[in-house]
C-alpha cells in the first residue's frame, strides 16, 4: 500500500458526504500530499473518479476490500 499523509474515514456516510468531507480534508493539505479515504458507499467509486477528473486531483488508487472502498487522492 502506498504511503499517505492524511486519512479520512467516511464509513457509513452516504452521497454526497464522502466527497464533501474529502474536499474539506484536501483544502487543509499541501499540493502533492496524499489523502487516503475509506468509504462504504458503493456510489463513491464512480464519484471519486468523477471528482478527480473534474478537480484535477489525481486518483492514484481505488480499491475494495471486505465491503470497504479505499481511495488515494493526490492533491493538485
Amino acid at each position, binding site marked *: 500500500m502506498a504511503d499517505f499523509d492524511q486519512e479520512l474515514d467516511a464509513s457509513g456516510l452516504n452521497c*454526497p*458526504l464522502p466527497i*464533501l468531507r474529502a*474536499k474539506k480534508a484536501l483544502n487543509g493539505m499541501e499540493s502533492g500530499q496524499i489523502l487516503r479515504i475509506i468509504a462504504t458507499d458503493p456510489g463513491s467509486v464512480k464519484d471519486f473518479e468523477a471528482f478527480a477528473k473534474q*478537480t484535477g486531483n489525481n486518483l492514484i488508487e481505488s480499491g475494495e476490500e471486505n465491503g470497504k472502498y479505499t481511495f488515494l487522492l493526490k492533491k493538485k
Partner: protein
Amino acid sequence: MSDEKKLAIIATKGSLDWAYPPFILASTASALGYETQIFFTFYGLALLKKDLNLQVTSLGNPAMPMPMPVPVIMQAIPGMQYMMTSMMKKKMKSKGVASVEELRDLCLEAEVKMVACQMTVDLFEFDTKDFIDGIEYGGAATFFDFAGESDVCLYV
C-alpha cells in the same frame, strides 16, 4: 474566478424529500469548483427558515416506498404525515444520509449564494427574521443576472 463553472438552481419545493436535491447538488458542485447560486421561490422558501420543520407525505405520491401497503384514505388521517416524516428521518439517519440542516450548513460554508424570492416573502407575509443569515433577497431579474452566465441551470 471567471473561468469557474457556474451552477444556478431554482428551488421551488418545501418538503423534506425535495429539500435534498438543491442542497446535495449545490454542495457537491461547490466541492467540484463551481460557483453556485440557489434561488428559492414559493414553497422553496421553507428551506431557508432558521427552524426547519420539513415534512414528507405520501399523499399524491404513489411511488413512495412504504413498509406496508396503506390505502390512500388512511394516509390522510391525522398524525400520518408526522409519522411518515419521523420514519423517513430515522431511515435517512440509519443510511448515513446527511440531514437537511447539515447539507445547508455545508452549502453556506462553501459560499453557495442563496437568494430568497422577495415576491414570495411579501405574498406569504413571511418575517425575514425567521430566515437564516447570509442570504439575499431578490427577484427574477436577480436570478437571471447569475443564471444567464451559468453553465448548468436546474429547476427543482
